[in-house]
């Protein structure tokens, strides 16, 4: 699309507007929405990671929550000072964050003998093991993880600037607490993560990954080292998971083991299916959708039919959200293969339609058709 004269200018303009809007948000929204937005950002980073693996390379992973846990907990471990019954290294927080992401990557690398050899749904079930192993570790490795009660998360401190409520800071008459400050950190992390993933997807590795997804043998014949790529993408996606985990820990300010269970992994799969498989924008859209839906339903539960207050015996907002997006996954796979992103592409106004259809035609040719399949 950027081939068209003016196309790249428009994209630049559009992203400038988006970034400006995102920067302005903390000055206007209240804490509830900021927190929801931060969850969405962290989810978006994680979803980009799993979309590289599942969407672009066709490797199903149900173990993404494990890598989030790896990131979150190793950040806490590296950054905390040792306390009573708890171990910690007390490293500077930015170093701890980088190490946490690397640790998640190493965890993915340890799994790579399996991740490189298995494919599709087989890998999905094999990665289930990560969830159960992870939960076991989180509950039992008490000195590192804090066991059942979890651990408090030390706030990030970058060049002497703390991402916490104190010391107090007021910008343009808006009190800047932890959420407002973290908003910018999250935004920066998300933008970097998205740009990097875009680079991977549009470049040579991205083509190799798509070829592996579409036709593994063809990929091998054309010289793509299939097993190495699968293992590599698995590691990359687990590093994204680790980064998402660090962000999540910073927002939650406490890590709890139950959170990183199978449900979280399913949430991530639902995100990329609903948003659109295989693209960065799709992952972000899906993450925002899945993270904000329960919050929206909670906020407006009294105004909505069929949704009851939590604890009153009816369908609680969280449950309603789960049922809604479970159904959305089914409907989208059946009727809207491109996800919400594909839907947006279809609904684009007519001047762009020709370009849009051209680009979908180009995309479609990457998918196997009866002719290209042997």
């Amino acid at each position, binding site marked *: 699309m950027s081939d068209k004269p003016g196309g790249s200018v428009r994209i630049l303009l559009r992203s400038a507007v988006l970034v400006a809007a995102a920067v302005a948000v903390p000055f206007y929204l209240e804490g509830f929405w900021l927190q929801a937005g931060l969850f969405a950002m962290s989810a978006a980073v994680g979803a980009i990671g799993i979309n590289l693996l599942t969407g672009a390379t*066709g490797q199903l992973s149900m173990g993404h929550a494990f890598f989030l846990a790896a990131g979150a907990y190793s950040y806490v471990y590296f950054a905390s000072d040792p306390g009573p019954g708890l171990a910690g290294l007390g490293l500077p927080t930015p170093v701890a964050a980088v190490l946490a992401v690397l640790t998640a990557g190493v965890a993915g690398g340890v799994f790579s003998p399996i991740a490189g050899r298995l494919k599709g749904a087989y890998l999905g079930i*094999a990665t*289930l093991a990560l969830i159960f*192993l992870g939960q076991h570790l989180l509950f039992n490795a008490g000195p590192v993880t804090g066991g059942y009660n979890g651990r408090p998360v030390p706030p990030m401190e970058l060049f002497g600037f703390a991402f916490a409520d104190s010391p107090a800071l007021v910008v343009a008459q808006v009190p800047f607490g932890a959420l407002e400050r973290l908003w910018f950190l999250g935004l920066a992390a998300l933008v970097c993560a998205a740009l990097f993933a875009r680079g991977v997807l549009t470049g040579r590795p991205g083509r190799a990954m798509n070829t592996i997804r579409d036709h593994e043998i063809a990929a091998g014949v054309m010289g793509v080292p299939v097993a190495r790529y699968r293992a590599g993408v698995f590691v990359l996606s687990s590093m994204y998971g680790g980064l998402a985990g660090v962000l999540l820990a910073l927002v939650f300010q406490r890590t709890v083991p139950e959170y990183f269970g199978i449900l979280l992994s399913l949430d991530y799969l639902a995100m990329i299916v609903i948003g659109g498989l295989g693209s960065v924008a799709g992952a972000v859209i899906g993450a925002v959708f899945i993270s904000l839906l329960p919050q929206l339903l909670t906020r407006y539960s009294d105004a909505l039919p069929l949704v009851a207050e939590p604890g009153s015996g009816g369908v609680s907002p969280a449950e309603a959200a789960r049922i809604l*997006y479970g159904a959305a996954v*089914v409907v989208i796979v*059946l009727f809207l293969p491109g996800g919400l992103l594909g839907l947006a592409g279809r609904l684009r106004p007519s001047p762009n339609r020709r370009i849009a259809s051209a680009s979908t035609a180009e995309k479609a040719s990457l998918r196997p058709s009866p002719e290209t399949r042997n």
Partner: protein
Amino acid sequence: MTTFLELLANGISVGAVYALIALGFVIIFKATEVVNFAHASLLLAGGFVVARLHSSIGFWAALLLGVAGAAAVGVLIEFLIIRRANVSSHSVLAIVTIGVDIVLTTELTRRIGTEVLALGDPWRDQVVHLGAVGIAQTRVVALAVAAVLITAFLLAFKHTGWGVAMRATAEDPETAALMGVRRGRVSMGAWAVAGALATVAALFLCVFPTPGLDRSTTFAAMKAFPAAILGGLDSTTGALVGGLIIGVTETLMSGYQNDLAFLGRGIGDVAPFLVMIVVLLIRPAGLFGTRELARV
């Protein structure tokens, strides 16, 4: 020694129950090439029907209705969703079943809430003594029922027209269709059988010594996934062997967890997955699975 024998007997019985679940999973995979991640929720649905109805219509009628109910849910999933899906890759269908699983599990766990539902089985907590070895009656019944069901299924798979049709479809769907096999019926049948087997398994997962059906039953059911995978997804023998391996390891590791304290509490629940990873490292297609060969 007595402890070991008791654990072994229990393990085999639990393993037989896992084998029932894994068998259903494998049947669905063979007939439709769909990896059914909604299997745990099928099991929960069957168990839920039994738990809710047994007090009003009696245990056996409730069990029958539960079996029929889960089979019906399976058929509905196949008829309404899997059949309509016109997708290029079966991996995508696996994601569809994840969506189905999210919906079913959320609704069922919501209905169960924080309760622990008894299934009203007639065996209660009696213990059978064979010499010094004491085994819960429920475990003996579980083993016997699972053995009968599995034998019956394997015989039917081998000798009846339905079994031949299903094997033909698994071998080569298009040729089977040209030979007059109704693929729709075959896959619907597979889902129904899987649902029915899952309900029986749900019963034996929730009776003594387990307190009853609650929201964690799905996690117990998920241990059958490693059973199916380590045996080989496309092998019925593999499902049986896998189930037994998983059951025995799990029971032994839970039984001796005081000696395995360095591995942490609750290692038994993780054992199935550890075994699966070890097997997959050595044989990526599982113990009895066919290695996928491709001709270019």
